[in-house]
């Protein structure tokens, strides 16, 4: 059984591998170290958010507010920084603000039983609105160098964010697979009623997943501000769809209870590689969307087709 799962996981790499190889063959620059590093950085940003989204989807919930939370986290942090507050404190404030959105989401969904889509769409508007009110549409700039290092610094040539993402993925994977919290989350997503009568604290589990995704989104918002040397008011716009798509491409079910953090890595890598490849392959900007759409569907289709063939054998 164990073996089978890891095989399944491995086979999911195929579409990504094909894409990489084809791109690299047409334009060898793809495999150049600098490109891979840039790509790794992009992937790491998306991945950190998507890990949170994986958790939320595993619990059979949804979060549309993450894009706005990224903006909010970055903006609050930026606001503190331009007011010369210490870096650590500013980061903390950014995270705190994000966590608050997560808590509101959780209360609305878990306690008030408002459909997750509406609740988080609501907080998506509110969070972005707060950013607009705060920033009046202008980025917070300039930011101190000690802060920028978080997004621009490298270790052995590799951006910090890549290490951070790796650590988060490992921990998240471990938590899902090995801890009682992780298993409870899977159980809640798979059968909420059964989990309830088995004595799992469903509310607490969902609560923590929502706070987690907001924290991670806020965190990415912060390192994104560090990367861009400025906290942009529209940062993170639209990321909720990208992240959900990446997670589902990675094999997690939108209806909960089934999926894995490792799959999410592949989903994120695929999404970012596609857009990198578009430029390297000199695809005209007008054709890019078409190509992206087709590759996305094809990648998932390949996987589904394989499963179907196995089943019909």
């Amino acid at each position: 059984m164990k073996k089978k799962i890891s095989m399944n996981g491995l086979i999911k790499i195929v579409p990504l591998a094909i894409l990489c190889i084809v791109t690299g063959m047409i334009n060898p620059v793809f495999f150049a170290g600098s490109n891979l590093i840039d790509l790794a950085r992009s992937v790491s940003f998306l991945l950190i958010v998507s890990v949170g989204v994986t958790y939320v989807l595993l619990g059979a919930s949804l979060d549309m507010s993450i894009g706005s939370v990224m903006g909010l986290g970055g903006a609050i942090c930026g606001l503190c920084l331009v007011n010369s507050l210490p870096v650590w404190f500013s980061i903390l404030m950014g995270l705190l603000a994000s966590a608050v959105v997560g808590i509101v989401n959780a209360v609305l969904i878990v306690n008030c039983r408002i459909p997750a889509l509406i609740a988080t769409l609501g907080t998506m508007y509110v969070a972005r609105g707060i950013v607009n009110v705060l920033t009046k549409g202008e980025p917070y700039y300039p930011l101190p160098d000690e802060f920028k290092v978080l997004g621009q610094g490298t270790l052995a040539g590799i951006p910090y964010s890549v290490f951070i993402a790796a650590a988060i993925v490992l921990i998240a994977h471990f938590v899902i697979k090995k801890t009682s919290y992780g298993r409870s989350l899977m159980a809640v997503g798979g059968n909420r009623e059964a989990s309830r009568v088995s004595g799992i604290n469903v509310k607490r589990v969902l609560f923590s997943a929502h706070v987690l995704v907001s924290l991670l989104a806020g965190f990415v918002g912060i390192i994104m501000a560090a990367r861009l040397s400025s906290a942009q008011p529209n940062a993170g716009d639209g990321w909720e769809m990208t992240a959900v798509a990446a997670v589902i491409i990675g094999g997690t079910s939108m209806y909960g209870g089934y999926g894995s953090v490792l799959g999410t890595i592949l989903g994120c890598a695929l999404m970012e590689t596609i857009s990198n490849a578009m430029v390297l392959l000199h695809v005209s900007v007008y054709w890019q969307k078409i190509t992206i759409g087709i590759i996305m569907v094809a990648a998932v289709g390949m996987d589904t087709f394989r499963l179907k063939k196995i089943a019909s054998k």
Partner: protein
Amino acid sequence: MAKMVLEMQHITKTFPGVKALDDVSLQAYEGEILSIVGENGAGKSTLMKILSGSYSCDSYAGNILVEGKTMQFHNTRQSEEAGIAMIYQELNMHLDLSVAENIFLGGWKQFGNVIKWNKLYQAATEYLGQLQLDVEPTEILRNLNASKQQLVSIARALSHKPRILILDEPTASLTETESATLFQIMLNLKKQGYTCVLISHKLDEVFAYSDRIVVMRDGKVINNHNREEFDQSRIIAEMVGRKMDNLYPKCKVPVGEVVMEARDFSVPHPQNAKKKIVEDVSFTVRKGEILGIGGLVGAGRSELVNAVFGIIGKQSGAVMIDGREVQIRKPEDAIREGLALVTEDRKLDGFVGGMSIEENITLASLKAICRYGIINHKKEQLSARKYFDELKIKAADMTVHMETLSGGNQQKAVLSKWLMTKPRVLIMDEPTRGIDVGTKYEIYKIMVELARQGIAIIMISSELPELISMSDRIIVLSGGKVSGELQQEDASQEKVMELATRMVV
């Protein structure tokens, strides 16, 4: 008298439109097996869900005392802490988790915040061993059949080491041997002073193992019998509100020509293309005949009929209706050819929970109540009403959502749905699972009546008395192959069991 461990006082619980429990009081004593019997919808499950904390204490009136102390259960965790564990009637499991995880569902913390998997598997193996259940603790639950899943849920209840164990129809999907094992465990628990509360529609086992029987009807406790005063016909009378002498109203009807023939059916294993769950099975069924299919759980009976009906794919096999070969690729085709199938797992594929009883009854016969694709509501109501009344479905009215019905009443609605298609061949997979004696009798009567009208009936049943009493002819499957055929005259429980356990090569 033994010590009273549990007392429920004046429990009243209402759902919108239904008074499910009406001033019910109940006691249970140390070291006894207490059975609760009653017709479908009598309120048995509701009472037990109250006890297990599944319904929070502010949703009903009345008191619960455990060992003399008044308890307020807001959730199942609190009742577990008070030593109560429950096995639910509807399987409440997580299909994508492993067997071991399901056994300790929600209790993983005892293996550490970071789960010590070896310990978890080891502990699971222990409980599986107790139940003589031969599955790997790492197996994903979805891959097990219904009876094995049921046994896992029993293992789960045992894992709580409860002082009071509630079993809501635990044997509905178990075979005789598996049931026997379960009762052995219950007797053991009893010896150690534990209390078991059993709900079952299989009255044989109720009479064989209980120390006391409580009869419920319409949300009230009707009577309370101690072991020395068990009187089957009286208890049945109290349950259904009238006297019943004969449980199986079978009578011979003249058998006509062959209506349906299944030829050389083979069904591949879903995960392993080389293995077959059903191998080269052929059978025929005639007009007016009731054909029983017997066998152990896992013999492939369900797969056989599901493949005939086009629900699952087959490797080979042909269906002939009136000697003419018909192509059945999906259930739609089967229904068009006059087949009907009451599936085994009603919750999975039997009904649409969010729709009303009426809508569920007419679901397979939409064409009959439509004109130019527009539903004739009068006609719909009338035709649904007919079955609703005939099968005595217990609900406030036909617009009630299916998911709020008691298990047995759901089964009746599903049966109604198929009867309404006016089938020529009616296939029933465990048709009386979870159905009370009174209704069983009604269903048997309907079967006989349908046979009399010339309908061919195929019945899969793991209840041997039912199988033997109701079938004109029985084929027995073992390991996916036919191991023998018996006429009603020759059939006995021993012979069926002998065939069911015979290895066919």
